[in-house]
């Protein structure tokens, strides 16, 4: 279906006559007034040919490139007035180079200072600071060609620069999401521009936890909810990053995981006591989910047996 749709779209494209090149306004084609007209400055690309060529394909060049040339005004939108730099023979001291927190403040955040309930590029966990700023992760001129959003490295390697422990757990532990493959990245769950703490997690369009974006069957609602999910969250039982335990559980065995909550010895916590026939010394009862298969919730059985 999708293939047919795209084929139809492709045919439509093929039949579309090529658009005319944009007409040059008459005012620009008129011969310049010789006496008053100041001498035209050289183009930035005369010296910075490689940067200009690469920049022509940059999203920031949208509809601003003229006949393949990057106009000086486009460079100056980030680097400031380049006249002194050009007249100084390329003096590096006479051009603004966006670096660090000040550079990002003046350039990136002039347009990208967006705040929502979850993200803030101005005040989020990776907010523009002395230690980490927009230009730590993004590069206008030398971004990784295979990565989106002008980031400087492939995402896993980029996040690994600071979050080594977390990335190491994905790389080394036996039970982990396959990051860097199949479109799953750190940013599938975390928003790098998110606010600190739990708000760095992306939410689904309806506001639910990011786990449910893929694991839709766990979303419910169920008639009989497992309290660990309804009153807690997926991370009550599971490690979202790499885990040494099967099913990315927080404990090596199922019975151990379950019994730690289902043992209300003297306190009034949520979690019922298993009946006495659950003899944990018997292999039959060491895997609670052998019977309680509908552990995420059931519509048919109060004890989550089916």
């Amino acid at each position: 279906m999708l293939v047919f749709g795209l084929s139809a779209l492709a045919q439509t494209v093929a039949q579309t006559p090529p658009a005319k090149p944009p007409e040059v306004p008459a005012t620009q084609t008129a011969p310049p007034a010789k006496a008053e007209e100041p001498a035209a400055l050289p183009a930035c690309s005369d010296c910075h040919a490689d940067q200009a060529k690469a920049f022509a394909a940059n999203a920031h060049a949208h509809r601003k490139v003229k006949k393949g040339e990057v106009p000086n005004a486009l460079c100056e939108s980030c680097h400031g007035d380049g006249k002194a730099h050009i007249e100084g023979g390329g003096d590096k001291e006479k051009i603004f180079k966006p670096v660090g927190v000040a550079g990002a403040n003046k350039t990136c955040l002039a347009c990208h200072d967006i705040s929502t309930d979850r993200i803030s590029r101005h005040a989020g966990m990776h907010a523009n600071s002395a230690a980490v700023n927009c230009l730590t992760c993004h590069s206008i001129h030398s971004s990784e060609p295979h990565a989106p959003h002008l980031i400087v490295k492939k995402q896993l390697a980029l996040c690994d620069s600071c979050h080594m422990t977390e990335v190491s757990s994905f790389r080394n532990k036996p039970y982990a999401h396959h990051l860097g493959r199949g479109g799953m990245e750190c940013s599938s769950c975390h928003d790098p521009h998110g606010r600190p703490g739990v708000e760095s997690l992306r939410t689904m369009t309806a506001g639910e936890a990011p786990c449910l974006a893929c694991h839709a069957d766990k979303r419910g609602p169920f008639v009989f909810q497992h309290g660990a999910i309804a009153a807690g969250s997926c991370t009550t039982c599971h490690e979202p990053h790499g885990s040494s335990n099967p099913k990315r559980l927080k404990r090596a065995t199922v019975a151990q995981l379950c019994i730690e909550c289902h043992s209300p010895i003297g306190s009034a916590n949520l979690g019922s006591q298993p009946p006495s026939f659950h003899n944990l010394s018997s292999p039959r009862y060491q895997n609670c989910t052998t019977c309680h298969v509908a552990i995420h919730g059931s519509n048919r059985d109060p004890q989550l047996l089916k």
Partner: protein
Amino acid sequence: MNMKRFVANCLLSLPILAIAVAANAQVVPFDLEIGYRWLDLNGNSQMYRTQINERGGLLIRSFTLSTSDFEGHTSLADRFRIDASDLGSGPAQSIRMEASRAGAYKLRFGYRSADAFSALPAFANPLLGQGITPGQHTFDRTRRMYDFDLELLTDKPIVPFIGYTSNENSGPGSTTYHLGQDEFRLLQNLHERDREIRAGASFHFASVYGQVTEGWRNFRGNESLTLAPGSGNGNNLDPVLGTPVTATTITRNDSTHVKTPFTNFYITGDVLKRLRLIGNYSRFSAESNGSENESDAGSFASFAISRFYNGLSENASSNAKNRTWRGGGRAEVTLAPNVDFLAGFQKEHRELDGVALIDTVFLQSITFAGFDRRDIETILNASSAIDRDETYWNAAISARSIGPFALRAEFRETKQDITVSPDLAEIVVPGSQGGDFNRTIDTIDVSGTYSYAGLLFGAAIRRDSADAPIFRTDYLDRSRLRFRAGYTTPKKHVRAGLTAETTTQHNDVPDTGYDARMRQYTGDVEVSPIDALHFRASLSQFRADSNVSFRLPQNFTIGESIQTENGKAREGGVSYLKGPFSIDASLSRFENSGTLPFNIDRHRVRATWDFKGHTGLAFEWDRDKYSERSASFADFYASRYGVYFRWRP
């Protein structure tokens, strides 16, 4: 199946390529790596597939096509990009496409596929002691996800958008079913599809912007289960009250349909020059309707009706609802350049309730004493409900740049109020299955960094204090300390980093005594004596210890649940790039001791040779060795060899 999917993915790519060619673009970066991979697998292939699942076969390792025509020569798209990875024999595959025309539209399409395989030797396996593996819970499924988003009039104050997402999960598996005082292995066939349509608009007027989204989600799940061949004797070989429990047929079919309309809204306004206000509201109302029918025959026992029976016929219908809304407001106040005061309030309310009508007929039942043979029908009309409120507010000062320093301090209070109303049928042993649970958590979070001339120091301290636990493993006190240091030489020939994190949490309520401590340390160094040559090495350690008291159900004595993990990873690698040649090699060893001791060794080598301009070959060799120290039935040793053709015109 791999070849079929490979061909399908190629077909999927062709029309997209056609669009790109038609775009008559000026700059066309193109990158293709396609080839074949061989797999040499020894040991437990199911464990290999559970953990890694990279298979042999045709593989498009990567594909990128990017065009741009920012001068507007074409009428369709002035920007187009497609990226694909691991199409073919990869367990996780993706295609991502973006097309846009300035001021007209922005289109994003994504396809992701993930193979999910699980067949663990010890998991859900009461028969492990008899040498029977794997466990009884296995699956071999594929998840396919499609995303489509279209924004229109992208340079106007109001930008309408539509979107569609499909998430399909299907495939065979096996599971278990507790029936008549025994557990039987069932073959399972599952098909689930979740579809979402959304529409809305972003708006931007002067310094006020926001977005409103209205969506509709539709989930349909169908599952059929039948008794696995040879599983009629069940897991429990002992007779129940002198009568063997066996099954000759078990058949179950169920379907679930969930409809979820939702609304999502946020608005942000720069009210004054230094004050930004943000408001948000989202809600959804999910309603699930389910039905199931079951038909079983055999010899079973039920303590609920105190009878033996020879068959069971059950029909169940259910209705469950989840009504959730979340709303809040925030303020971001700029006190001075790079110094902000931040405050916010959020409240979430969730109501979960459901009813189920379960009609069960026990066929040809007879009392345990052998009298009164007849069919017995039970009807359970059950309902349960959970209400959950969570509110929090926070206030923070963030000084992002005071010379080389950055500091942030935050206080946060979170209140949880949960009411659980279980159905009486849910309560087997009275107590702790329902009630009102309240918990307030106060959090103080302070962090700071020093960054100067390539040197970086960072530290963060977080302290959480709660007045009561809801679950036994909830903390009353939790402390987290993080430290980070790094140094990069001016010409970036040497980079070194160190991170350390320790988290302790306690719940010292009498009879619980929950203590947990987690420590993570990582150090890495990267040396580049020349630009073309990089050496890297890292050491990391993950240690976790926890213990909590619990009551053994069988004799009511108090035991200790102790979990210990001590994982050490050593990694090293080298990469060299010179002219048309490149090589990248790495090896790692992860040793885990504690409750589940095992070792993992990984070797990776990738070499490329561009023999003509931008045309070349890539060679890959990967080796993964997994070995458990307590037993060897899960061990595997796998090597993969790949040869790929590279073309980057």
